[in-house]
C-alpha cells in the first residue's frame, strides 16, 4: 500500500496546481484574490484562515495598516489603543521590531508575491480575456510596490514573476536613494497603458467599479512623478502634469447632494460605488460578502466611541480608537474655533484638546466614513461595513494639478480649489496659492483618506516642519516635538533583516 502515500487534497476547498486554473471563471477568481488582498485578510471572512501569521488577523489588514502608517504619525489623527506597537505609530518613535510596521511590510510584499504567482500561473492561459487580467495584476503589483517605495524606500526586497517560490533569498531593489524600484513601477505602469500593448488595462472611467483601469494607472503615475523629488531626488513634474491632466479630463466631480448628505459626504457612504465618476479607484467592501476587521469596518468602528451614537454611523457599536487633534480642526476654523469649512465632519461632543492619548473622548471625533446609504437608510449589516475606500479620486487630482502648476511656475490658478469649495458651499475668497495653503487645503479635502504622510513629506513638514507645528503627541510628548529625520521612512522589520542577509536596514534604525 505504499502508493497510498501519494495523496492529494481531499478538501473541496483545496486544489493542486494541475486542477486550479481550468476555465475562465477560475482566472477571474485568481485575479479576485489580488484585489481582495487590499480588502480581506484571508480565505475566511472576517477571519480564520489568514494570509499572514504572527499578528492578529484583523490588525494585519492591508488598508488598516496602510491607513495607520499614513495617518497616525501626522497632524490629522491619533489613536488611543495600547496594543503592542500601536502608541508608537502615533508617537513617531517606532523601532524596527514594531509588529504593526512588520505586518504592513509583510502585507505589501505578500501582495507583490501573489501578483507574481498569478502572473506565473496565467502565462500560457488559453483565454484572450486573461491578457487584460494580467495587466490588472501588474497594476496591482506596481501599486503595492509604490506603497513599498513610499513607506520603506528603494531597499525593500524585490521579486517578480521570474523568481521562484521558496528557493532564493530576495535581493533588495537597490541602495537607499537609488532609482530601481521607481523605474520598475514607472515602466510597468507605462507598459500597461500603452494602447498597442497586448496586456493592457481597460480605458479610464470604464469597466467595473473596483477594477483598476487606465484612470487608476494615470493617477498612480501622477503621484509617482509628483513625489519623485522625495523618492529619487529628481524633478519629474512635467510627466506628473501629463498624467494628472489625463485623470482630470476623464472624471467629473460629484455635485449632487441627497436629502440626508452633502455631495462630499456621499463619497464616503455605503453606496459610494455610485460615485464612480469621481472615485477613480477604490478598495471595495461588502458587509455580507467581503468581511474583515480591517478596511472600512475598522475606519468606521475605530472612529466611534464614547458619546458618539453608533446608529448614526450605521454600526452596532464603536471600537473607540481614532479621533482628530486640534491641529486638524485648526484648518477648518476661522481662528476663533468657529468652523468655516463644511468638509470638516467633526463630532464635537468630545473635548478638542488631547492631553491623554488613551482617552477616546479627548480630540474631536471624525464622522467622515459611515456605513449608511446616501438615501439615509442603513447598510446591509451593523457589524461589517459596506463602504468602499476611495484610493484615488478626482478632487485629489485637481489639487495635484494646482500643486504641479504652482511648483512648475511658482504660481497657480485657484480655480480647482474654488470648485471644491463651491461643491461644499464654503464661502469666501480662495486665497492666493502657496505651499502652506496647498498643504492645508489637501488636508481639508482629503483628511483621513490615507494621503497625509506622503503629503507632509513632499512639503518637507513631516519629521520637522517649518510651518506645520508639531502636533499633539508627536515625538511621544503631549505638546508634540520634532523628531529625527530617520522617521521619514519606516524601518524594515528586524525579523526580515535577520532572516535575509541580503537586506540592509534603513539608516539609524
Amino acid at each position, binding site marked *: 500500500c505504499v502508493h*497510498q*502515500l*501519494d*495523496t492529494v*487534497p481531499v*478538501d*473541496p476547498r*483545496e486544489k*493542486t*496546481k494541475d486542477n486550479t486554473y481550468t476555465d475562465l471563471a477560475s482566472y477571474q*477568481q*485568481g485575479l*479576485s*484574490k489580488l484585489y481582495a488582498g487590499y480588502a480581506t485578510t*484571508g*480565505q475566511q471572512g472576517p477571519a480564520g484562515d489568514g*494570509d499572514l501569521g*504572527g499578528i492578529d488577523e*484583523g*490588525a494585519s489588514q492591508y488598508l488598516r495598516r496602510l491607513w495607520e502608517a499614513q495617518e497616525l504619525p501626522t497632524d490629522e489623527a491619533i489613536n488611543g489603543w*495600547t*496594543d503592542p506597537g500601536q502608541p508608537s505609530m502615533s508617537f513617531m518613535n517606532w523601532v524596527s*521590531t514594531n509588529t504593526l510596521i512588520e505586518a504592513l511590510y509583510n502585507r505589501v*510584499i*505578500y501582495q507583490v*508575491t501573489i501578483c507574481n504567482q498569478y502572473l506565473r500561473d496565467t502565462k500560457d492561459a488559453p483565454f484572450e480575456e486573461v491578457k487584460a487580467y494580467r495587466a490588472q495584476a501588474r497594476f496591482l503589483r506596481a501599486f503595492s510596490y509604490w506603497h513599498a517605495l513610499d513607506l520603506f524606500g528603494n531597499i525593500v*526586497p*524585490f*521579486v517578480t514573476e521570474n*523568481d521562484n*517560490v*521558496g528557493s*532564493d*533569498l*530576495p535581493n533588495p531593489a537597490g541602495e537607499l536613494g537609488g532609482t530601481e524600484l521607481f523605474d520598475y513601477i514607472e515602466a510597468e505602469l507605462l507598459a500597461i497603458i500603452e494602447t498597442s500593448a497586448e496586456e493592457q488595462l481597460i480605458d479610464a472611467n470604464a469597466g467595473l*467599479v*473596483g*477594477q483598476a483601469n487606465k484612470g487608476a494607472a494615470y493617477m498612480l503615475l501622477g503621484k509617482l512623478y509628483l513625489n519623485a523629488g522625495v523618492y529619487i531626488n529628481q524633478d519629474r513634474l512635467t510627466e506628473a502634469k501629463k498624467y494628472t491632466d489625463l485623470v482630470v479630463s476623464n472624471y467629473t466631480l460629484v455635485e449632487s447632494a441627497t436629502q440626508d448628505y452633502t455631495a462630499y459626504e456621499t463619497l464616503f457612504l455605503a453606496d459610494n*460605488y455610485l460615485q464612480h465618476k469621481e472615485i477613480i479607484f477604490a478598495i*471595495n*467592501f461588502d458587509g*455580507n*460578502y*467581503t*468581511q474583515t476587521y480591517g478596511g472600512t469596518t475598522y475606519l468606521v468602528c475605530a472612529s466611534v466611541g464614547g*458619546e458618539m451614537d*453608533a446608529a448614526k454611523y450605521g454600526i*452596532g*457599536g*464603536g*471600537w473607540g*480608537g481614532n479621533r482628530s487633534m486640534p491641529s486638524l480642526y485648526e484648518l477648518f476654523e476661522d481662528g476663533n474655533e468657529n468652523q468655516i469649512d463644511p468638509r470638516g465632519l467633526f463630532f464635537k461632543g468630545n473635548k478638542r484638546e488631547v492631553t491623554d492619548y488613551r*482617552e*477616546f*473622548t479627548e480630540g474631536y471625533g471624525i464622522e467622515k466614513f459611515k456605513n449608511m446609504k446616501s438615501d439615509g437608510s442603513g447598510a446591509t449589516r451593523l*457589524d461589517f461595513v459596506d463602504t468602499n475606500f476611495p484610493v484615488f479620486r478626482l478632487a485629489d487630482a485637481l489639487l495635484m494639478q494646482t500643486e504641479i502648476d504652482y511648483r512648475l511656475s511658482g504660481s497657480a490658478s485657484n480655480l480647482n480649489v474654488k470648485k471644491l469649495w463651491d461643491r461644499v458651499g464654503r464661502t469666501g475668497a480662495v486665497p492666493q496659492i502657496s505651499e502652506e495653503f496647498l498643504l492645508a487645503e489637501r488636508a481639508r479635502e482629503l483628511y483621513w483618506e490615507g494621503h497625509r504622510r506622503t503629503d507632509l513629506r513632499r512639503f518637507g513638514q513631516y519629521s520637522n516642519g517649518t510651518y506645520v507645528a508639531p502636533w499633539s503627541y508627536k515625538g511621544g510628548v503631549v505638546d508634540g516635538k520634532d523628531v529625527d529625520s530617520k522617521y521619514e521612512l519606516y524601518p524594515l522589520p528586524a525579523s*526580515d533583516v*535577520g*532572516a535575509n*542577509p541580503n537586506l540592509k536596514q534603513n539608516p539609524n534604525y
Partner: protein
Amino acid sequence: TTQGTTSDFDGHYKLTIDNQASILMYSYIGYQKKEITLSTATTIDVNMEVDAEQLEEVLVIGYGSVNKKDATGSVEAVTADGFNQGAITSPQGLLQGKVAGVQITNSGGAPGAGSTIRIRGGSSLSASNDPLIVIDGVPVDSEGVAGMRNPLNAINPNDIESMTVLKDASATAIYGSRASNGVLIITTKKGESNSSELSVNYSGSVSVNTPNEQVDVLSADQYRDLMSGRPGEHLLGDANTDWQQEVLRTTVSTDQNVGVSGNIKGVLPFRATVGYNLDNGTMQTSQMERTTVNLNLSPTFLGDHLKVNASIKGMFVDNQFANTGAMGSAVVYDPTQPVKSNDPAYAPYGGYHTWLQNGAPSVNAPSNPMAMLEQENNNAKVNRSIGNMQLDYKIHGFEDLSVKVNAGYDYSSSNGSIYAGEETAWNINNGATGGFVSDYTENKRNELLDVYLQYNKEIGKSRFDVMGGYSWQHFYSEGTSNENNVQGNVENPKENIWATEYYLVSFFGRFNYTFNDKYMATVTVRQDGTSRFSPNNRWGTFPSLALAWKINEEPWMQGFDKLSNLKLRAGVGITGQQNIGGGDYPYMARYTYGDAQSQYSYYDPNTGQIIYVPTIRPEGYDENIKWEETVTYNVGLDYGFFNDRVTGAVEGYYRVTNDLLNMVPVPAGSNLTNMLLTNVGSMENKGIELSVNTKIIQKKDFHWDFGVNFTYNDSKITKLTMVDDPNYEGVKVGGISGGTGETIQIHKEGYAPYSFLVYEQIYDEGGKPIEGAYVDRNGDGVIDEKDMYIAGDPMANVYLGFTTRVSYKNWEFSMAGRASFGGQVYNNVDSNNAYYNNLYSSANGNTNNVTSDIYNTGFQNAQLKSDYYVQDANFFRIDNIMVGYNFNNLNDGKMTARVFGTVNNPCVFSNYKGVDPEIQGGIDNNMYPRPTTFMLGVNVNF
C-alpha cells in the same frame, strides 16, 4: 451450584456445605489456583504455590511484551492497584504524579477536561509535544474531535488494567516517526481465561464538587471606595454582586459501572462493562454525561495455537459547555451592578444588566457573566468507538514462530450546536434580528493494520526474540459548520465543509538477545513513510540499540544478599515527529478557495448590479519539509534491596532534536506567506529521574507502602535559524490578554521554550513596584525592547510525585500528591486587570472591577511586560486522599464489597499570587477553576 467464602487475615476460613459438594478451589492473587477433592475432613489446610508467571511482571511494549526483569529500555507501568483514587473521569488523571519524567497537567476544572501529557519535557516547538497513545494496540488520534474536551475520555478509567509509559528511544523507536515525545500504552481489562464462574462487579459513587479559592477582586464596597471621585463614578449601581460566586456553584456528580466477566463454556473468555458518568461542573451550566461500553473477547483455538483478542469500546458523550469567557468577565464585571434588573433599558436583553451606549449594547465592554452562561446553550454529542481484533497464530509444527495480525479502527463522530437567543446583547448586531446559532459536525475515521512475525528460540545460554512486520494506518477526518442568527435571516450565512487525510506506512523489526540470563541486547529499527512529505523526504529510518546487564546475577555479587536486583541499562536511538500541525500537505503547491465572506465585489454601472467573485489563494509551502529527528541517550539502573522491599530506578537522559519543525518568519518575498512551518533549529532536553518504592511494613494484616518519584528536567533551544545570526531575537509566542497581538513568551536560542520575555521592574524602598521604571539592562540610557530579558519559563525543573497506601485489616488508606519547583507563571489576571485606568473606559462607556493586587502596585496603566507578573509557580498539591473499608465475606462469602470515601484536590500549597499555580503553558488567564471533590463510593464483586 457453587459456594464460596473468604479467609480472614490469618488464613482461617469456614464453609458450610451440602452433601453434593465435591471440590474445593482455592485462589489468591499471585498464587496458582489449587483444587482439593473433598474428604470427610473438617479441617483442610492448603499450601498454595506462587504463580511464577503472574509474579513476573510483564511489561507491555510496542508490538509485544517483555518480562520486566529482561527489559532493556526505560519502561514504567502502573497497574490498576496503583492508580490515583477518587472522582477521576479521564485516564490521564489515573497516572498523574505516578511516573518519574511524566508530567500531566489538566486544563482546568471543567467536566471531562483535557490534560496535557509531557514525557521528559517535550522535544518539539511548533510540532506536537504529545506522546503517542496506544490503546490495546491501536495508536489513537490524540487530536480529539470537535465537541469533546478530552480525546482520551473515550476510555472509562474503570476499564483500564494498566498504563505503560515508554520513555527512552530504545523503547519508543519501534514507533518511529511518532515516538519522539514518548509513548503511553493503555491496556484494558480482559476476561479471565481460567475462571468458569461468572463474576460481576459493580462500582458506583456520588461526589460533591465544590468551587475553590477565587480571584481576589474588590468587593462592591471596596470598589465604591476606590471609585469615589474618579471618572465613571456616575455609572456605579447600588447592588453588591460577587460575580464569581454567581458564576460558580456546588454540584453533585455520579459515576456508575457494571462489569461482567467470565468464560462461556470454557472457550470464550469475555468481559463486558457499561459505565455511566454524570459530571456537573462547578461553573454554571457545564456538564458532561458519558456512557461507555466495552466488550472484550479472548478465545483460543486450535489447541492454544491461535489466540484471538477482540475488543470493542464505545463511548457516547453529551457535553454541555459553559461559556468559559464568563470567568474572565466575572473578574472584571462591576460588582455594584446587579445580575438582573427591572430597568426597562435591560428588558431587550432578558433583564440582564448590560453596558449600554446611546441605548445600544457597548460592543467592547464586558458581557454580563450570568447572561453569557444562562442565555447561551452550547451542546455537543460525541460518539466514539475504538475496536480491534488481534490474532496470534503459533505455526503448527514450528511453534517458535508466530504470526500476528492486528486490525483496528478508531471512529468518532460529533455534532454540536450553539444557540444564543435574540436577547443576547453580544449578538445583537448579527444580521437583521440578532442572536447566534451555530452547528457543526465532525467525523474521523482512522484505520490500522499490523502484520508481523515473531520468532522465539533458546539455544544453550542464548535466547532470541525476533520480531518483524508491517504497519499501515490511515487517518481521515471531515467536518461541517454553519452559522446564522436565530431567525436564520443572515443574508450570506457562514457555511463550511472540510476534509483531510494522511497515511502512514511502516516496516519495523526488533531483535532481542539474552545471554546467560545476564546480558541483554535489543536492536530495533523502523522505517516510516508518510503522505505528509514529498516523495524525496517521505521515508525515515529510526533505529535504536539498548544493552542491559543484570549485575546482581554475577557470581561476585552473591555476597551482597541485601541486594535483590541490580540492573544497568544503556540505550540510544533515533525517533521522529511528523505530527506537524501545518496541514497534511505542507510540501505541495496548493490553491485554496475562499469562503463566501471573503469574496471581492465589483459594481457594474451598466446593469446596476454588484458582482461577487470568490477568490483563489496560492498557498505557501516548503517542498523540502521533513521529519524532526530526535536522538535520545539513556542510562538507567534498576535496583532492589531487602528482597525487593525497596525497589526503584535511577535514570539519566540526554535528548537532542534536530531539524525542528518550527513556524518561523520566511524572508519576505521568497514564499507565498510570511510564516512557514519548516525544519529549522535544534533543542535539547536532559534530565535525571529517580524512583523509590518501599514496602515499609509488610505484615499479614498491616501493609504500608510508600513510593516517590523525582524528576529533574532541563530543556533548551540550541539553534533557531538557518544562518547563524547572533542578533536574532527569536520567535515570539504566548499571546496574552491586554492588547491585540500582545505576547509574553519567546523561543530563543540558549533558553527553554516559552521563556518569558519581560522588563526588569524597579521597586521603591518599600518594595512597591515603580510604574514604568525598568532596569536599563544594556546601559544605553534608553529603556526600550533591547532591555527586555528572560525572566524564567513555565517548565518546572524539578517535580515529584508521591503515593502512600496503608491497609490495616479491613481498612485502607491512601494518599497521593505532587510537587513542582522551578517553573514560573505569568499572572495575566493581575496584569490585565489591576490598574487604575482600567476602572473606567470612556470609549466603551463602562466601569470595570480590578483585582486587589492594585493595592500592591498602584499602577495607573497596564504594565503587561513587567517581570513583576512573572511569578514563581512552585507548589505542593495533595491530589487525592482515600479511606476505604473492605467487606470480605458477605452473603455467605459469595460477595465482597468495598466502601470508600475520597477527596480529590483537597489542597495546594503555593506562594503564587494567583488562584492556582498549575497552569499548562504558564499563562494564567482565568482558567476554569479546579474544584475540590468529595466522593463516596462502593464497589461490589459477586
